[in-house]
């Protein structure tokens, strides 16, 4: 893959022995990253020309034919989105090397509701988080005295406002929609956390063993990283994430291209348009149990919008797919009683529902 090569083409700077007294060692990682960024930009800005040359000159397709148009679109869109993803993930994972779950817990410990919820939602975006460690993270937060509502703000924001979703939205709908998604995602996380925190006797919804658990204070104290190390970590994570989602991107764009070409315009306007009030709850109800990453969903969402689905409905569908999923609930069931899981899912789903209506109304 071309975009992956950009970042992995030069050898890891961390494997070199540091030479004493050399300013070179401090500058080298920056030089490599700048070179990669320039290469990225050159490829990115020539994509359209290359895609058209491939389709119309090399393969000899007529620029007016439907198949030719679809192919040129596909050959342009796939590398464009993959490049955006790679760049975005690299930037975000570099920022994440400054954060850790342990440090976030320290920052959130003893914070009041309100301020705590806002901080938790923001930290949810920049703290490295994998849903597979949701359980130890939850226990760690609760034991450190982070209020439950604040903990939920974190747990809602972390999967919903992620770099893959933002890069995809930016690539397909522009920065305004990406920002709108980020803003409302954070708002839902903050408000839903505050609501959950105010539910009476909410603590009893947490499995009893969590309260009795003793948490060690032994965790690795964050040693200061050099920039070379940060970039190396970011490069590794980028490669990992991109290799995990690229197939979904290609499949999603292919499905999107198919819908573009073969489903009649406005076919969905009746069932997913602004006038169909029930389409938003239907989209959320379908999206909540579904588990897919943002990369696979967004091209489909794009195609749906192209065929007359309202933007709010489509975004509500996407948010509910990304933010809530059955596997995550099964993981959380180990520390939360069913009652609290239902409260959690309902609150977030209602938040997404309102967002969907709001978008349909204002856009």
């Amino acid at each position, binding site marked *: 893959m071309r975009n992956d090569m950009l970042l992995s083409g030069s050898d890891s700077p961390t494997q070199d022995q540091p030479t004493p007294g050399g300013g070179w060692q401090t500058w080298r990682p920056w030089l490599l990253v700048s070179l990669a960024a320039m290469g990225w930009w050159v490829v990115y800005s020539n994509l359209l020309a290359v895609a058209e040359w491939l389709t119309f000159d090399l393969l000899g397709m007529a620029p007016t034919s439907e198949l030719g148009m679809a192919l040129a679109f596909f050959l342009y869109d796939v590398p464009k989105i993959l490049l955006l993803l790679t760049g975005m993930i690299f930037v975000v994972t570099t920022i994440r090397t400054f954060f850790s*779950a342990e440090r976030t817990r320290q920052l959130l410990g003893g914070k009041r509701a309100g301020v705590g919820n806002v901080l938790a939602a923001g930290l949810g975006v920049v703290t*490295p988080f994998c849903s597979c*460690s949701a359980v*130890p993270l939850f226990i760690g937060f609760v034991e450190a005295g982070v209020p439950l509502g604040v903990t939920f703000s974190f747990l809602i924001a972390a999967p919903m406002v992620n770099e893959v979703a933002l890069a995809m939205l930016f690539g397909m709908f522009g920065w305004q929609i990406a920002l709108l998604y980020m803003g409302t995602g954070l708002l839902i996380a903050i408000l839903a956390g505050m609501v959950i925190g105010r539910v009476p006797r909410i603590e009893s919804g947490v499995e009893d063993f969590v309260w009795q658990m003793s*948490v060690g204070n*032994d*965790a*690795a104290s964050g040693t200061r990283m050099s920039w070379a190390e940060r970039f190396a970590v970011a490069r*590794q994570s980028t490669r990992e994430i991109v290799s995990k989602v690229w197939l979904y991107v290609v499949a999603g764009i292919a499905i999107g291209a198919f819908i573009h070409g073969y489903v009649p315009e406005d076919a969905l306007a009746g069932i997913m348009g602004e006038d169909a009030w029930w389409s938003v709850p239907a989209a959320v109800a379908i999206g909540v149990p579904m588990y897919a990453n943002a990369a696979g969903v967004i091209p489909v969402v794009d195609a749906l919008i192209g065929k007359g689905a309202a933007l709010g409905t489509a975004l509500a569908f996407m948010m509910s797919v990304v933010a809530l999923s059955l596997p995550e609930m099964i993981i959380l069931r*180990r520390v939360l009683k069913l009652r609290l899981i239902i409260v959690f899912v309902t609150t977030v789903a209602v938040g997404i529902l309102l967002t969907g209506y709001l978008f349909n109304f204002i856009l």
Partner: protein
Amino acid sequence: MMEIKVLGTGCANCKKTKAVIADAVKELHLDLNIVEVQDIPSIMAYGVMSTPAIVIDEKVVSSGRVPAKSQVIEMIRKAQTA
């Protein structure tokens, strides 16, 4: 004898981490135990909140990521001299 523990709830990254450590140990020609710790209370007892984490001789040396082989080798060397 040195003991290395991998803390994690059995996710893909935890298995990857174990493989990286096994690789590093092989390269150093060391004979030591690599133990997988999967139950939550034991993981929490180390104060770790992001898995996979690595514990060498009861000390947490890494958490929340799959380190490179060279980094694991460095961790082991550090623990040996400590």
